[in-house]
C-alpha cells in the first residue's frame, strides 16, 4: 500500500500548502482589526475568491484529464479525473457556503437570485450529476466514459460564471464586479499569495485523494 507521505513530492506539496496557508491566515488576522467595517468587507477576498478561481482551475484540469481518458483509455486518467472532480466539488461547495455567510452579513440574505450565484449553483448541480453518472451506470467502464464527457461539457459553465457579472447591469446585482481589485491597494499583493496558497491546498488534497483511490482500485487496502 502506498501511503500519502511516502512520496517526497507529496511531502513538499504538503509543507508548501501548510506554510502558505499559515501566511494567509496571519495576513488575514492582521488585516481584521484595522477597521470594524472592514472585518465584514475584505477578508472574504482572501478565501472566497481564491476558492472560486481554484474551482475554475479544477474544472479545467478535470476537463483535460477527462479528455486524456477518452483518448488514451488508461485507467490512471480516470482516477485523476475522479480525484479532481471530488476536490473541485468540495471547493465549489465551499465557495457557495462562504459566499452565503458573507452575503448574510452584508446583504442581509443568504441567497440572492442573480447571475453569478445561480451559475455557480449550476456548476454544483452538474458536479452532483457527474458523480451520479459514475455510480448509476451499469458497469464501471461505461460510467467513467460517460462521466468523462460530462467533465468536458462542464467547461461551458466556467466562462458563464466568469462573465456573468457583465451580462446584467451592475445596478441590479449584489455581487461585486470583476474590477474589484482597483478598489483597494493591498488586494493586489495579498490576492496572488492567497491564490497560490489555495492552489497548493487544492493540489495537496488532490494528491491525497488520488493516492487513496489508486490504492483502492489496485486492491491494496489493508
Amino acid at each position: 500500500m502506498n501511503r500519502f507521505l511516502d512520496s517526497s513530492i507529496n511531502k513538499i506539496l504538503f509543507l508548501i500548502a501548510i506554510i502558505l496557508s499559515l501566511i494567509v491566515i496571519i495576513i488575514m488576522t492582521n488585516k481584521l482589526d484595522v477597521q470594524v467595517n472592514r472585518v465584514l468587507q475584505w477578508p472574504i477576498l482572501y478565501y472566497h475568491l481564491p476558492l472560486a478561481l481554484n474551482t475554475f482551475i479544477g474544472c479545467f484540469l478535470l476537463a483535460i484529464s477527462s479528455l486524456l481518458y477518452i483518448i488514451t483509455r488508461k485507467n490512471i486518467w480516470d482516477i485523476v479525473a475522479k480525484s479532481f472532480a471530488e476536490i473541485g466539488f468540495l471547493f465549489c461547495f465551499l465557495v457557495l457556503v462562504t459566499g452565503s455567510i458573507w452575503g448574510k452579513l452584508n446583504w442581509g440574505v443568504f441567497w440572492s437570485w442573480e447571475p453569478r450565484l445561480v451559475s455557480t449553483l449550476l456548476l454544483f448541480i452538474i458536479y452532483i450529476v457527474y458523480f451520479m453518472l459514475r455510480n448509476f451506470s451499469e458497469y464501471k467502464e461505461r460510467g467513467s466514459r460517460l462521466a468523462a464527457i460530462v467533465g468536458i461539457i462542464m467547461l461551458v459553465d466556467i466562462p458563464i460564471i466568469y462573465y456573468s457579472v457583465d451580462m446584467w447591469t451592475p445596478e441590479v446585482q449584489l455581487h461585486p464586479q470583476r474590477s474589484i481589485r482597483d478598489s483597494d491597494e493591498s488586494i493586489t499583493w495579498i490576492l496572488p499569495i492567497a491564490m497560490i496558497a489555495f492552489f497548493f491546498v487544492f493540489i495537496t488534497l488532490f494528491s491525497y485523494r488520488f493516492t487513496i483511490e489508486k490504492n483502492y482500485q489496485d486492491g491494496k487496502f489493508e
Partner: protein
Amino acid sequence: MIKYLIQKEIIIEYRSKESIISMITFSICLILVIAFLIDPLSSEFQKFLPGLYWLVYLFSSVLGFLRLYSSEKDNQAYNLLLVSPIDRGNIFLSKMISIWIFITFTQMITLPVFSIILNFNMPNNYVYFILFLLMTNWSVSAIGTTISAIGFRTKMSEVLIPMLLYPLLSPVIISAVQITENMLKGYDYVNYSLWIMIIFTCAIFFTLTGYLTFDTLAEE
C-alpha cells in the same frame, strides 16, 4: 446518409406520433395550469409571459428527449444502428436534426395556443422572432441530444436526463427569455446581441461536442 437517417426518424415519428403528441399535450396542460393559476388578463401578469412560455417549452421538450433514444431500445434497434456502416457522428446529427424538426413542429402549434389562451402578444418583427426561435431550437436540440445520449444508458435515465439537461439548458433558456422580453418591447438588436451570442455559442459548442464524442458515447 444523414438524409436516410432523418427520413427513418421522421417515418417512425409519423407512424407512432409518440413524442410530438406527448409534447403538445403536455404543453397545453401546462398552459392551462398557468391560466388557472393567475388571471391572464391582468396587466401585471404580462411581464412574466416570456419566462412562462420558455418554461412550458423547457418542460415539454424534455419529453421529446426522453423518447429520443429509448424508443430504439426495443428489439435492440439501437445496437443494429450502431453496427451498421455509418459514421457515428452522422447518427448524432440525424437525431439532432429530427428532434429539431419535432420541437419546431410542437412550437408551431403551442405558441399560437399560448398566445391565444394567455393573451400573449407576439413581437412585431416576425422574421427575426422566427429566426430566433429556430436558432434556440437548434441550441436546445444539440444540448438535449448530447445529454440523452449520455443519460439513456444508465440505470436511472428518466431522472438523470432532466437533472443534467436543466442546468445545461439554463443559459439558453435565460438568454431566450431576455431576447423575447427585448423583442416584445420593440428594442433594437444591439440591446440583446449578447444573449444571441450565448445561444449561438451553446449551439455550436454542443453540436461539435456531440458530433465528436458520439463515437465514445455510443460504445457498449
